[in-house]
């Protein structure tokens, strides 16, 4: 125990929590904390906008599996964190946000830069604190890290009044955390494991419906063993890309609104969904009442509120997925020894769909650049160790479809909240967490214009990320919907970003290398040029055809049975007896 002010106690607590880096911007209310930060062992990266700090913390957390930390001042500093914290909540990312608050006596008086950030974040934060007594700081920090990183991970906010940072206190970091109202279950009940194994062994058309929870639980290796054991097809949701290797013959790809025909159909026609860390999101299920109507459901998750939320679970399996899958492997061996169903016809059907309907695209006839081709080449040339972070929209779907993900934590995106502007700051955080790995942000021209200011941060702090702008001079996904559902009335989706801004010049102005490419024959050389520079951020403006669309597509609110592989073109089900 030692005497110090609240600010020093905060920084000592963060050090004790094992923080090695945080992203933030100082301001009035948080200013006392920035004095001890100045001499702390923690690396503080001064971002250009608090939203960048939040997404960077998320990117860092998604790549490392550790808690990402961001810090901001009261009022606007704190409210600028709202979007990334909501984003982290939707995608279950462990993030701790520290915010300064006006002095405790001023709280509630509409003081300068006062915002009730605890109240504002209450609907989505996993938990949050308002600290007015410096003695509470170490415990709040210890609890925040515990809550953020255990169970279903999520964002926790600690709001600290300025006077609590200034007053003297005794620093005493708790050695353990005990919360009566928060005891996430980690050990899976043995009975539910046996029930799951028995149900699997009775099923002739099972499919592994794999969600982001498998990556959060670091259970990819266990999943690999389980999938090999059963030999059933695997689908990986947008949040789970990389949880199971794309190159594996059992992997049917991504299900959902822009999923592969094979993955969507596997879920629709299965007699059993082995659901691992997925949450039956509307983008996966389509119209819920018509989703996988003949399937029984095993639902394994660490969050009890997810089990049965959208879809009844015949066998609920509550617990940490790593433990669940580890326990399921021997149980399934035992069940399969008694009864091993023949999955061959089912696998043959699914493989036939996979071969007949691979994700593909048309090369534009006018010689212009195909966005899918650019993304496909990025994946091929950079290789499977590369980390990709994407924004939200068409380029996100193409980046999920046309890059082969072989390892967990190599694909970062904003899946739940759908936050445009996620890519550049998340890539920055990812590169900080994995400095020896190539990190590409695949961004749209719309997304890029929301958060590109963090390239300055990257240039000044030796964070050499690479950014591929898939520039179709449009809010492309919205434009696609206008094409399909609004008779081509392109209301406010034309960004004109091939005219303004000049992206390579903008990149150069922020201390990055700026490149551009608009011919298919230059794509490889441009990517290789970008790959050759590793001491400066690189931005490539890929000027692509604006009419390319994302296919397949299940239109919002319709059944997955109505999947289209191109405009007004359904798959030919004639030869498929499913």
């Amino acid at each position, binding site marked *: 125990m030692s005497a110090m002010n609240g600010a020093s106690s905060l920084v000592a607590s963060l050090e004790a929590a094992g923080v090695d880096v945080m992203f933030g911007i100082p301001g009035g209310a948080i200013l006392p904390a920035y004095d001890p930060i100045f001499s702390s062992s923690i690396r503080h990266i001064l971002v250009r906008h608090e939203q960048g700090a939040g997404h960077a913390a998320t990117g860092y957390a998604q790549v490392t599996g550790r808690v990402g930390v961001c810090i901001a001042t009261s009022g606007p500093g704190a409210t600028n964190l709202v979007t990334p914290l909501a984003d982290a909540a939707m995608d279950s990312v462990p993030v701790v946000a520290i915010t300064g608050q006006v002095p405790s006596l001023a709280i509630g008086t509409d003081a300068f830069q006062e915002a009730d950030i605890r109240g504002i974040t209450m609907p989505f934060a996993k938990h949050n604190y308002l600290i007015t007594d410096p003695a509470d700081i170490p415990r709040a920090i210890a609890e925040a890290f515990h809550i953020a990183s255990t169970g279903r991970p999520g964002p926790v906010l600690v709001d600290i009044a300025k006077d609590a940072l200034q007053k003297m206190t005794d620093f005493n970091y708790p050695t353990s955390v005990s919360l009566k109202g928060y005891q996430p279950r980690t050990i899976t009940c043995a009975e539910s494991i046996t029930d799951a194994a028995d149900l699997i062994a009775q099923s002739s058309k099972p499919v592994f419906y794999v969600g982001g929870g498998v990556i959060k639980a670091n259970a990819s290796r266990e999943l690999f063993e389980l999938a090999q054991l059963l030999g059933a097809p695997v689908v990986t949701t947008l949040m789970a890309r990389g949880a199971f290797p794309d190159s594996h013959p059992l992997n049917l790809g991504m299900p959902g609104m822009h999923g592969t025909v094979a993955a969507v159909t596997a879920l629709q026609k299965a007699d059993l969904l082995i659901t691992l860390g997925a949450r039956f999101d509307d983008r996966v299920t389509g119209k819920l009442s018509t989703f996988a109507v003949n399937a029984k459901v095993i639902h394994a998750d660490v969050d*009890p509120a997810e089990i049965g939320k959208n879809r009844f679970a015949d066998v609920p399996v509550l617990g940490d997925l790593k433990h669940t899958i580890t326990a399921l492997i021997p149980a399934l061996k035992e069940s399969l020894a008694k009864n091993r169903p023949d999955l061959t016809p089912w696998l043959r059907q699914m493989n036939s769909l996979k071969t007949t309907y691979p994700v593909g695209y048309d090369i534009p006839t006018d010689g212009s650049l195909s966005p899918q081709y650019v993304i496909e080449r990025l994946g091929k040339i950079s290789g499977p160790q590369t980390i990709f972070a994407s924004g939200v929209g068409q380029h996100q779907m193409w980046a999920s479809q046309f890059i082969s993900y072989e390892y967990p934590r190599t694909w970062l995106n904003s899946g739940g909240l759908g936050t445009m502007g996620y890519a550049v700051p998340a890539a920055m955080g990812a590169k900080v967490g994995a400095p020896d790995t190539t990190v590409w942000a695949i961004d749209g021209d719309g997304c890029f214009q929301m958060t590109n200011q963090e390239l300055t941060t990257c240039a000044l702090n030796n964070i050499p990320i690479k950014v591929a702008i898939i520039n179709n001079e449009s809010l492309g996904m919205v434009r696609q919907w206008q094409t399909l559902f609004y008779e081509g009335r392109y209301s406010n989706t034309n960004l004109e970003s091939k005219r303004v801004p000049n992206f390579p010049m903008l990149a150069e102005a922020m201390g990055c290398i700026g490149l551009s490419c608009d011919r298919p024959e230059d794509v490889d050389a441009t990517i290789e040029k970008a790959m050759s520079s590793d001491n400066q951020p690189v931005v490539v403006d890929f000027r692509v055809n604006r009419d390319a669309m994302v296919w397949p597509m299940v239109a919002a609110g319709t059944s997955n049975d109505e999947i289209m592989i191109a405009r007004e073109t359904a798959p030919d089900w004639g030869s498929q007896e499913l």
Partner: protein
Amino acid sequence: MAQHTLEVIVENSPGVLARVAGLFARRAYNIERLSVGPTSNPETSKMEIVVNLDGHVLEQVIAQLDKLVNVISIIEILPDEVQPIVHDTQPDYQN
């Protein structure tokens, strides 16, 4: 739909009522009646929440309530029976 009464033991700390009320509001669950009072332990308070929800939705309310860190336990009070249904910090899905 039948009325159900939930007895929710929460930490006696600022903002807990807002957390509980906010959860009902954002997930569009209606509260019929709500009362908050002390317990014999000064560190906890007791909320009695009456809802007009059944089956799956009621289960969801309880599961979501249980996720609030400040919520310690949830007991469903059954009007005509002696034994209340105890929802501890994790609902038991094993039956």
